[in-house]
């Protein structure tokens, strides 16, 4: 049986520009009922119907899990991406009907933690907005360190400071402020868990310093959805369904498979959940792996691919789909 997430019909109830790059979208249930309860760190997949094209992108829920009258997400405009964020910014209006998935949490709090130490970079702040709201309501012990480019792009920094005061620290790149990572990692009580959401470089840096300073892997959590990258078009044969498909420049391999009427399971569409893992039957060319799911050996083997984020360049590719 498939383990994908169920879907929800929603109406866009508000569209709020937050700053030059970020816009917030509010969703309510189309039938007027309450949305499902969720846990801090959860995301939804937003289905964007743009004419003939369908894009399905994951966004972290940033509203309080205590309020199920509406969900909110924040979308950062990516002018070089495949157009999902531009579609959201440019075409989605209040009153539009959309389809989103049930919430799925791949970045869950470890509730055993004696303290939660959170590191955010840029738009990576969104899951922490929900998690801090959840923890604050339960009297949880947390501390959030948030790195931003400039004060003008410090999305929700003011709200967080107002809500949680000294539990939130902001660091501005343009003022040469840096998260004092080693000092933070060396001064936490035993039983603290570390959470990181931000650019890949920040995640790698924090994970490496935590490991060097004796933080066990079980206590370090991070979320990094890879966005599918545009690339050179290529052709693929789907052996089980007996089809040959064309993956366009702005399309992901998963989207092309879906457009052909084949529906692999998925939860994240960002290379982390493992659901859409696909066996390679034969290939003549080079894999462009972008996922965080397969091991290095899997990547080197040429036997597996994550079609949500990875691509291929070469003469021929046959997949077991």
């Amino acid at each position, binding site marked *: *049986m498939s383990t994908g997430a*169920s879907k929800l019909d929603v109406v866009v109830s508000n569209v709020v520009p937050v700053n030059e790059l970020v816009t917030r979208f509010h969703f309510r249930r189309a039938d007027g009922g309450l949305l499902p309860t969720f846990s801090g760190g*959860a995301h939804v997949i937003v289905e964007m119907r743009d004419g003939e094209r369908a894009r399905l992108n994951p966004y972290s829920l940033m509203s309080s899990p205590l309020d199920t009258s509406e969900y909110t997400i924040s979308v950062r405009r990516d002018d070089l991406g495949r157009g999902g964020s531009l579609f959201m910014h440019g075409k989605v209006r209040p009153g539009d009907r959309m389809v989103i998935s*049930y*919430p799925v949490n791949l970045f869950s709090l470890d*509730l*055993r933690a004696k303290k939660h130490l959170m590191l955010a970079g840029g738009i990576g702040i969104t899951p922490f907005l929900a998690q801090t709201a959840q923890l604050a309501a339960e009297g949880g012990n947390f501390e959030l360190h948030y790195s931003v480019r400039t004060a003008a792009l410090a999305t929700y920094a003011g709200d967080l400071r107002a809500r949680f005061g000294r539990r939130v620290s902001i660091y501005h790149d343009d003022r040469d402020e840096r998260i004092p990572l080693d000092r933070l990692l060396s001064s936490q009580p035993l039983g603290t868990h570390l959470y990181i959401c931000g650019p890949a470089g920040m995640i790698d840096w924090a994970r490496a310093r935590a490991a060097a300073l004796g933080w066990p892997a079980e206590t370090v959590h991070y979320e990094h959805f890879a966005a599918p990258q545009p690339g050179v078009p290529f052709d693929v044969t789907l052996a089980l369904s007996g089809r040959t498909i064309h993956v366009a420049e702005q399309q992901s391999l998963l989207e092309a498979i879906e457009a052909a009427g084949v529906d692999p399971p998925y*939860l994240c569409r960002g290379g982390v959940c493992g659901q859409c893992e696909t066996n390679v039957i034969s290939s003549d060319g080079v894999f462009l792996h972008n996922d965080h799911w397969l091991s290095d050996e899997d990547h080197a083997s040429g036997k597996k691919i994550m079609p949500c984020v990875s691509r291929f360049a070469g003469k021929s590719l046959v997949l077991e789909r």
Partner: protein
Amino acid sequence: MGINFRTETFRDDFSFRNSPEHIRRFPFPFHEDSYMYAVNIEPHVAGPAGSVLEHPIDVDEHYVSEMADRALVLAEDPLRCQSLPHMTLAGWDLLELLMTAKAESYPEHFSLTRDGDRWHWINRPLGIDQKFLFGDLTTLPYGPMEYITRQSQGDFCILDQRDGNLWMDAGIVTTQADWSLDFDIGMNFFEWHAPVPLAHEKGIFTRALKFLTNVQQGKPARRLNWTMTINPRLDTSPENYHKWGPDRATVTPENVGQKVHLRVELQSFWRLPRSNALVFPIRCYLIKMDELVTSPKWARRLHRVIRDLPEELATYKGLTRYRATLVEWLARYDDGTPTSPGFGPE
């Protein structure tokens, strides 16, 4: 039309019986004439009206008496209900799941009124009328998991999900098939299943874990498991094994029909929304051999399954001492004719 709740016992004089309607709705677990472990997990979607799968959480004629038996077990041994400190939020999730499911499926017996955090719960069969604040431990007589599972048939395990594994970090277990919550609490999926023979080698648990960690909100799953019990005893715990174990030596050709029971567990798996934990209700259904053989197909098939069961499984399920007597008795109901595929009585 409401459920006609029976007054009966699962100990001492063992007055438990199934009504004829309940015999027909029994979740017979064998779809073919043999049995081996498999990852037999399927979506927990509504089944036919009148079946145990009609509603997401089944309430049946044994409800009131089963709850009385649970209260007796907990009074004797409070260690049967435990929750590690980080599992309280999951307990609230479970309370919400069970209250809303019962109130929706059985409005004549249960009702739930919610006004923000102010909840009003009425359980008519057990005579309970409770107003409380959702999330406020001081407004209920027990913790949320214990409160609602004292009013829900079946055992409940709440599994925390972290590091790609599931951890048995809370539960209430009073109707178990021979495993100890007190011992297993805190273990991961592989550890608490460690004593099960054969299945590890077949990779069953690795595949099952992969499936379960991906169960999503709004998409519960289920599977059936089975064993056999002498006398309709719900509490076949290892804690009391020295008290009920001797029953296994009391089976004779004359009393098989009344003493030997097929015990089926309907296990379901639900993602809990606030805690991201997984709850695993294990609902136990009992049927005596005399009741079971009223379906000729079930009688023929059970005979073949028990007769051909691999030795390790028969030992693990505790059948060794009375298996020959049972097979001989069931053979009388097996004329060798083929059985139709599927679970139904005919």
